[in-house]
């Protein structure tokens, strides 16, 4: 079987590499299915405490492989909603719900669903030469993979409109200047920086980090009242974790805590 997704688990970090470098790692159905299998493992395996997503070769991900979407000018209109519903939406939902940090190491161009996928990860680190292209509008399409939800939240409405309607290239540095991503590093530093961050996360109280992530995601749609209730609930859960106990006793004993993620 062709491996369109490479995945390895090391020291608690699952690294997923989108691997169709000759097609700028654009998605086809088989690649989606392989990615889905990896996510299943990430969801079930408690020893995996951080997910790191990157691309093979010079690009991060060019979104949907348009070669898979040959449009016959005389045929019936294609149902693009089908692949959104079958593949992209479950992918976005699963990454958002995964109760552990997801890092995107954007090594090169991230276009279309590749861009919105990257921007939707919890921590986005980009190589200086990388860029984000909301290519959808130039094909007559709508940003999917969470794009229209995400862009106004990470960039603000005016910039989201500009990005989505113009469909131009956005440099990694501009994305950082606009607060859309966490960090830009020199190209040769990308891999080690992302790795370092991932290794940091696997030593942290993963259960608590998962709750933080869920709470911040929930805040996007909650009222203040609902969010305050949610904070009460999550704090109650966090207070029962082993890691909270360990964190407090390590603090009082002035030693380094040894978090298990539970």
């Amino acid at each position: 079987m062709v491996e369109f997704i490479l995945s390895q688990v090391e020291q608690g970090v699952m690294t997923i590499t989108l691997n169709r470098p000759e097609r700028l790692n654009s998605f086809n159905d088989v690649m989606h299915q392989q990615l889905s299998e990896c996510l299943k493992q990430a969801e079930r395996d408690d020893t995996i405490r951080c997910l790191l997503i990157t691309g093979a070769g010079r690009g991060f991900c060019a979104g949907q492989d348009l070669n898979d979407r040959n449009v016959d000018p005389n045929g019936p209109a294609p149902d693009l909603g089908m692949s959104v519903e079958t593949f992209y939406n479950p992918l976005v939902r699963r990454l958002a719900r995964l109760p552990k940090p997801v890092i995107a190491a954007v090594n090169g161009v991230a276009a279309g669903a590749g861009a919105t996928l990257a921007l939707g990860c919890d921590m986005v680190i980009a190589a200086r030469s990388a860029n984000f292209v909301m290519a959808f509008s130039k094909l007559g399409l709508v940003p999917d993979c969470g794009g229209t939800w995400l862009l106004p939240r990470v960039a603000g409405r005016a910039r989201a409109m500009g990005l989505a309607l113009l469909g131009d290239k956005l440099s990694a540095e501009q994305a950082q200047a606009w607060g859309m991503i966490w960090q830009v590093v020199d190209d040769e530093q990308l891999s080690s920086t992302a790795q370092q961050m991932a290794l940091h996360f696997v030593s942290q109280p993963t259960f608590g980090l998962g709750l933080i992530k869920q709470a911040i995601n929930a805040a996007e749609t909650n009222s203040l009242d609902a969010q305050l209730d949610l904070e009460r609930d999550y704090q109650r859960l966090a207070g029962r974790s082993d890691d909270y106990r360990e964190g407090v006793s390590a603090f009082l004993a002035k030693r380094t805590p040894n978090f298990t993620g539970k």
Partner: protein
Amino acid sequence: MSELIVTRHGRVLQLTLNRPAARNALNNALLTQLATELEAAAVDGDISACVIYGNERCFAAGADLNEMAEKDLPATLNDIRPQLWARINAFPKPLIAAVNGFALGAGCELALLCDVVIAGDNARFGLPEITLGIMPGAGGTQRLIRSVGKSLASKMVLTGESISAQQAQHAGLVSDIFPAPLTLEYALKQAALMARHSPLALQAAKQALRQSQEVPLQAGLAQERQLFTLLSATDDRREGIEAFLQKRTPDFKGR
């Protein structure tokens, strides 16, 4: 381990469905135990409210299909199951369903029968009977439509598709949603809050709420007033109002 675990928390009774291998499928034996426990609790003056719970991943995923498959028309006609449901429904004190995970088919009907449904964020409600060539047989078509309205109830019954806790809350099937690990705890808190009130007032109020589904508004208002009048003859009413005026906690005796 018993298939129905009975726990007491002060004046609150907790009944835990415990057939995890069958995803808490409600067979006749389990429904009988539920009915029996509730009947005992109904006459137990030390119990004010009851919480029915499954586990963190499942409330009850339906009826027992093996049990149902054996029954032909005559056997179904004379099934004791409707009587078991009626016995459960006759419980006169507040009944709370604490629902995590699947409440499907009979599980959903059990939740609908309860006065209050508190759901975990992982809860799913549905009546998939139609996919089996049957239909809801324990109130699913009647109670659901009264709580969520025609369109959603019909969609659920006719497609067999389930809805999330959020949808169920928007539609009015569920009062509160909590993270799944806290559902039971918060349901017990709600029950404890109810249990602080006068037992007779709870029963009368529940009866009035129930009757709102049975009779026209004018008759309902008349019955409400009768029940209201009934409470005026209780010691607890005097105690409740006195305690309020004296700014102290009331001490209800159930009479």
